């Protein structure tokens, strides 16, 4: 990049918020996606407000410079990994919670606020923002909108997009767009708010977000159910949800995942081939106990070997914490695991679990399956070591086969991680050529010069 352009960019944010130091360039060439190493950008910029973002994009658009927006860089699909030289824009300085309305159950926040910090603040008002990604300690609200993130509570409370009311977005040409209202519903025109939801930074930079919130439940109850087969656990999940019982979380873990939690994360777990970790919540104890009772009946009919119920609200805290960090803990076994993020219809869970085992055996890859089974979202972790010849290749092949299987079951290849670089070769299979063509036209309408996060979601 020309020095003159670099100087213009530095002028927008100030010297202390711009870097061309190799140490910064290399750190901003990666995210949490283990497979693809990115291109080192020319410069990293840390704007502090919408006007600075706008200033950067005006320059980038004029000189056709690629811009990769990012916050915490916790993407598992390479959504923040630059594939070309240019600008990486770190938006984490925009980290103010602007307004909380208890009466309207609503918050307006800047994009760089960390999910956990937001909820810590909202607790003071008796409110919470429910989507609960495993990376919630570090991921930001802006990133959650861009990826439509969710997690363990999605089964009951839904995903980030379900809470979106309004956005402030800086468009690729530098214009600042305010979309949405503070009304709790709207039938007004095309839904531009959700156009930016799961756009992965390809359409503009989300700088401000207005979210609907929920009142915090008064009672929560943790439990775990033990099984001698993962299929029985899967069947329990499908039947439980179909019966109308909706736990706040229902996580399935197979024997390998349980072994890693016991041996590597040192969580005290009883012996079992598979388990369901559950949380029930509600307004009073009897409501929660009723749900637990109904679940218990179904679980026992499906062959559950026993259910432990937490004696207090913190008893299973370590277990849940370890569950959230499970993906990264797996690297103690193999340093280059590949995660799937498929979602299948609930009735398809047992078949999917069986198919995943078969795919692992066929490709000689050890696979652990766990995830938010209550909404059909299964994370299979394909355990690979890139230093062993052929292992990563076999893992990638198995990864593709699992994704194909999900689509055959009328599911999706991603429930909460997004497409990024990792899954873009599969996007036309899921959406069809016409679907992708429409996506490309939308991209072109908003970003005719193709500067925003190029090479993500689909090929330019």
């Amino acid at each position, binding site marked *: 990049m020309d020095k003159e352009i670099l100087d213009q960019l530095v002028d927008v944010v100030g010297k202390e918020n711009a*870097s061309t*130091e*190799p*140490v*910064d*360039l*290399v*750190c*901003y060439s*990666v*995210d*949490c996606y*283990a497979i693809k190493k990115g291109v080192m950008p020319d410069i*990293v910029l*840390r704007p502090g407000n919408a006007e600075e973002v706008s200033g950067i994009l005006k320059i980038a658009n004029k000189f056709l410079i690629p811009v990769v927006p990012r916050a*915490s*860089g*916790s993407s598992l699909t390479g959504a923040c990994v630059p594939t070309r030289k240019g600008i990486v824009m*770190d938006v*984490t*300085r925009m980290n103010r919670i602007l307004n909380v309305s208890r009466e309207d159950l609503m918050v307006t926040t800047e994009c760089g606020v960390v999910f*956990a910090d937001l909820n810590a603040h909202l607790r003071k008002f008796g409110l919470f923002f429910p989507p609960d990604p495993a*990376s919630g*300690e*570090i991921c930001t609200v802006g990133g959650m909108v861009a990826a439509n993130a969710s997690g363990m509570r999605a089964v009951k409370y839904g995903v980030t997009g379900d809470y979106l009311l309004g956005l402030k977005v800086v468009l690729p040409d530098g214009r600042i767009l305010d979309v949405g209202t503070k009304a709790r519903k709207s039938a007004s025109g095309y839904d531009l708010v959700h156009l930016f939801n799961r756009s992965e930074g390809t359409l503009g930079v989300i700088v401000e977000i207005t979210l609907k919130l929920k009142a915090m439940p008064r009672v929560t109850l943790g439990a775990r159910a033990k099984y001698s087969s993962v299929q029985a656990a899967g069947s329990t999940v499908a039947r439980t949800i179909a019966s109308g019982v909706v736990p706040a979380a229902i996580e399935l873990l197979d024997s390998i995942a349980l072994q890693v939690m016991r041996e*590597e*994360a040192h969580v005290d777990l009883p012996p079992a081939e598979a388990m369901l970790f559950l949380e029930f919540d509600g307004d009073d104890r009897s409501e929660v106990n009723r749900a637990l009772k109904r679940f218990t009946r179904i679980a026992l009919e499906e062959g559950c070997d026993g259910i432990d119920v937490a004696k207090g609200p913190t008893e299973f805290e370590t277990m849940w914490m370890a569950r959230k*960090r*499970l*993906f*990264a*803990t797996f*690297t*103690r076994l193999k*340093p*280059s*695991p590949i995660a799937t993020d498929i979602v299948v219809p609930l009735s398809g869970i047992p078949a999917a679990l069986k198919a995943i085992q078969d795919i692992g055996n066929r490709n000689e890859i050890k696979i652990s399956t766990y995830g938010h089974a209550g909404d059909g979202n299964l994370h299979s972790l394909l355990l690979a070591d890139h*230093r062993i010849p052929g292992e990563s290749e076999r893992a990638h092949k198995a990864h593709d086969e699992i994704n194909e299987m999900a689509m055959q079951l009328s599911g999706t290849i991603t429930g909460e991680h997004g497409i990024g670089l990792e899954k873009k070769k599969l996007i036309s299979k899921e959406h069809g050529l016409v679907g992708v063509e429409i996506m490309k036209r939308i991209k072109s309408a908003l970003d005719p010069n193709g500067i925003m996060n190029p090479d993500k979601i689909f090929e330019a």
Partner: protein
Amino acid sequence: MTAYKHLEKYSEPLEYCIRCGFCKANCPSFKQIGWDSASARGRMTAIKAMMRGEIEPDEGLAKRLFTCTTCGDCELHCPPGVKTVETIEAARAELADRGLSSEKHKKILQRIREEHNPYGEKNAGKNRFRRDTEGADVLYFMGCTAPFRSPDTVIATMDILDAAGVKYKVIGEDEWCCGSVLRRTGFVDEADKLREHNVEQFKRSGVKTVVTSCAGCFRAMKKEYGVEDIEVLHITQYVDKLIDEGKLKLRKSRDRVTYHDPCHLGKHMGVYDAPRNVLRKVATLVEMEHCRENSMCCGAGGGVKSAYGETAIGVGATRMGEAKITGAKLVVTPCPFCKTNLSDSSKCLPVVDFAEYVASKLKKGE
């Protein structure tokens, strides 16, 4: 990979860092500086890139690596179990070997070479506290910060030991810097020389126990000295023990205090209960939101205070803000370095050394 002798053994474990980022959640330097490269994840990424020859060791890299306070929070929260602190220290040693240390750290090295303490004071100044007690089987290791910058801590510690009737030695100028500051800042060979000297002094003194009032010295001696036949105790542990044995009597006060866990005592060594046991006997202890394993760093460690004072003060101010919220009237901490930096960072509450606070609660006549 390019030859980096200090980092060689960390090359394989580094492969297990997948940049999940859980290390960032409470990282004091990341929270202060904001750049991803100032988090453990960023530092691991940069070190790997340096070893692979993708980036060169330079001043920019040095700045990111030397602003780590080595508090160890990242290591406690690293799901793959990467030894982040050791890796950062090894990388610092590589940079130090290549002359990329800060001028402040070079100056500290020079002072230690000349005077055996990081402050450049005549080490003979430690002789004012010298104590040669016949038959003593305990050695009080003062460290350098207490005798040269906070002598009341030394006096208070000796008052406590005297009150409990402990027979102890203080070896004065024969006590050299423990080496912690040099090891943290990459001067490994020089730190080894200090260790060898001090271990020799311990052996010569014939003591069975070494007690120190400094968290940094405690960690260095316990973890890096390899003196298995000599018990190393921090003053918090020793006071707790003396009370249990009925040798030390303290009076309960109406003080409302909060306790700051020094990282080198808590996160690195797991000493959380002893200081709290003691404080509960003399005051009402109120905890900060982040305490014990989740405690926040004071900001001074790892050479940050000397070379990047602004970062240290910023981190310290955040910690003092937490202390203020508790409603406590003072902050007690058993590390002279934490005490200094917290006091420098904010005047919202007085910060008192553990030994000084305990000494003020000695029963008269004890």
